[in-house]
């Protein structure tokens, strides 16, 4: 199946990316090449095959719910582009 320019724009929005028109054009070509190649998988009948969800046959890894030391707030905030009074600053949302 071919992906259209408007689909690319929709997917870009979902991915929180924006492209200018010339980029969209080259992306469109490359994505269609890649998706064309990927469609090779349709050759295989997988109707009776369980999907792999994990590379190893593991059961769930439980641990005790214990309080342990964590990094101080100042350290956590030290890489934030904008911070104020012990919190991250974000643009107004509502």
């Amino acid at each position, binding site marked *: 199946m071919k*992906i259209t320019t408007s*689909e*690319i724009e929709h*997917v*870009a929005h*979902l*991915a*929180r*990316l*924006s*492209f200018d028109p010339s980029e969209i054009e080259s*992306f469109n070509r*490359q*994505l269609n*090449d*890649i*998706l064309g*190649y*990927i*469609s*090779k*998988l*349709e*050759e*295989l009948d*997988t109707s009776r*095959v*369980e*999907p*792999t*969800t*994990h*590379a*190893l046959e*593991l059961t769930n*890894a439980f*641990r005790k719910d214990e309080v342990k030391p964590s*990094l101080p707030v100042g*350290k*956590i905030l*030290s*890489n*934030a*582009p*904008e911070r104020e009074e012990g919190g*991250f600053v*974000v*643009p*107004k*949302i509502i």
Partner: protein
Amino acid sequence: MPSLIDLSIYELHDILSKREASAVEITKAYLDRIGEVDPKIRAYLTVTADKAVAQAEEADRRLKKADNVTPLTGIPLGIKDVICTRGVRTTCGSKILENFIPPYNATVMEKIEAHGAVMLGKLNMDEFAMGSSTENSAYHPTHNPWDLERIPGGSSGGSAASVAAKACAGSLGSDTGGSIRQPASYCGVVGLKPTYGTVSRFGLVAFASSLDQIGPISRDVTDCALLLNAISGHDTRDSTSVLRDVPDYTGSLIPGLKNYILGIPKEYFISGLDPEVEKAVKHAVSALESQGTEVVEVSLPHTEYAVATYYIIAPAEASSNLSRYDGVKYGLRAPDYKNLMDMYKKTRSQGFGPEVKRRIMIGTYSLSAGYYDAYYKKASQVRTLITRDFKKAFEQCDVIAAPVAPTTAFRLGEKADDPLQMYLSDIFTIPVNLAGIPGISVPCGLNSSGLPIGLQLMAGHFDEAKLLTVAYNLELALGRCKNWPLA
């Protein structure tokens, strides 16, 4: 008399233990070497000279008191810039993390620091480990020490090039679809991707979480075993790391392959395989036969579907993992924006390079409403078939031998405009990640232009010991590299 940088890790350990050289002398020799060769190969993104000397001084104190000395005490290593290092910038090869200074260490860093190893700096890579040439680094490409006009492979290109150029004694890389083994092959060094779950991924910047593993790159197989000893083991901070005892992998370095059966998968010897690569791989297989192994043909019938499977699973997981780069908690925030949505889009569009955007787009598309069954579910089913192929093959043999990559190192720019061609250079390494099994690249000769070729060995889950035994015997049969580049 060889200089300090010519010695293997175990040789350095020997002279450190005998106090014939100090850790500071060794570290300074490597820092000088970086000054000499790194302007040509550009393997480092950050050189941490002062920190390295301070760590070497501490290692010398330990050595002097014979206190807690291990084979890595005082050994200078390079670290791929995808591994978080407390207080040292960790960029992941991306502009979006240009100023990111992790407030914590990855578990592997805590482990090698506990050994008293010295970190020389952070090594270049394709942005977010997405690429096969290190040309996708947002900073600069890395050059192959064997031919500066060629790529070192990727994504751990800096990790492999620095080891080959003797700009570190060994390094850590990460491998999601071949990112340790392919550059190791192109640079003529040893690179091992452990079984999924062997090494903690805590502090490894996530690309595709069901495939990513950290592993060592070294100049020989013994050094590989020493590094693997240090980084393996369960970690409560990574629930996918496996609770099992770590053997001493140097115990597998035994001459002779009696009772070993080596499988050769016919699907790896296809058209498109460079005849010189094929010749070197076959020569390596006969060298292993001379060490006593039996050789049988095996079949991995779904090999041809591995790249397509990978390019659904890896981008899907990446699109989810990389949603964290939103300009809020750390990393870049675009300077001018109208509202929250605009900030997200500008930050991510300015911060990510083209290949990362391409993969986020593929992943977002394949996971978007209506396409999940056709893409992600289908790929996960084919992944099961690929894993079954290996299980069946390992009923007939102990270790599988094959090429690492269809060609030797290609030229800078050669595949940069054709993403699909670049993806296909990982055709022989991707199946190992999908099945979660271990794989190693071991040098097996040079082509007529003097470019290295690697033999890939693959084994069942947690059979690293078998891989190392076979790799060690190949090294015994062919001899260790004597003519390193940029000498």
